């Protein structure tokens, strides 16, 4: 029996029928490095990610932690700019 896929955010196993699964188009795949066949998110994480306020906050928060670990001194400022850009895109879309 095939095991449940893991949520890309929290890493927990999540049943396929209770998850948000995103498959990129060929054009979208061409714009990113090492694209996956599908992007799986559990329901609780997707609720946060898809919200125009908490989604950009979560993504920029993760980015800030990565930048800090890489030793980027202005990680907070970069993450803030990233968040503003994501928020304005999310608001335009919603």
């Amino acid at each position, binding site marked *: 029996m095939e095991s449940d896929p893991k949520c890309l955010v929290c890493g927990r196993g999540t049943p396929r029928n209770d998850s948000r699964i995103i498959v990129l188009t060929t054009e979208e795949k061409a714009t990113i490095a090492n694209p996956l066949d599908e992007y799986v998110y559990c*329901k*609780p*994480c997707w609720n*946060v990610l898809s*919200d125009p306020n908490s989604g950009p906050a979560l993504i920029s*928060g993760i980015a800030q932690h990565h930048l800090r670990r890489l030793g980027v001194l202005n990680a907070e400022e970069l993450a803030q700019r990233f968040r503003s850009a994501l928020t304005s895109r999310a608001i335009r879309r919603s």
Partner: protein
Amino acid sequence: MIRLPVLVERSIADSEVARTEVAEAFKAEVLSHAAEMGSHLSCRKGCSNCCYHPVLMTLLEGLTLYKWLHENGLWTNALKETLKKTARKTHNLPFEVWSLGLIPCPLLDDNGLCKAYEARPFSCRITYSTGDPKNCHPHSLGPGMFPKSAAFEKLTAAETPILRRHHLVHFRLPLAASVLYGELIAQGGLDLDDCQTALWKAPDGI
């Protein structure tokens, strides 16, 4: 004024006494530690960096908070709607995602103040910072808040027998869900002594 069965009121009072005692003892411990280190508490009115961290509470604490909000005229449709939205969003959500998603406490007002400061949850009463308050922000990697797991352990030991009187295991729910269940119990929609199974369900029922 909400009237609950005498035994429920007794448990609410007993659990509030336990929370107050543990919180006060913990504050004394934090102050003594800060004095030893030559530092002081840096928490200030209007700083709300800790209001984006997960807050969990037992059903009895949720009931206490609901009663306080109701009796102080703060239980409005708008607040209930905010609590419902937050309950849906925080249900089964990992703590790290909750913090990084900067999901605000539903009791936080537009000025960065707590609407229920006097009756704020135990988890908030034992939140202290002795360093730069910026480090309490969920996106910060700094040392942040004073560790509070020891206080939670003491409270769990004190609360467990009180919860057992109502056939409840010790279980903490996110603030929003707990307060909404508190409303349901206070309004007679759910019996405290018979609600353990309801707690495991998705928050659609509240």
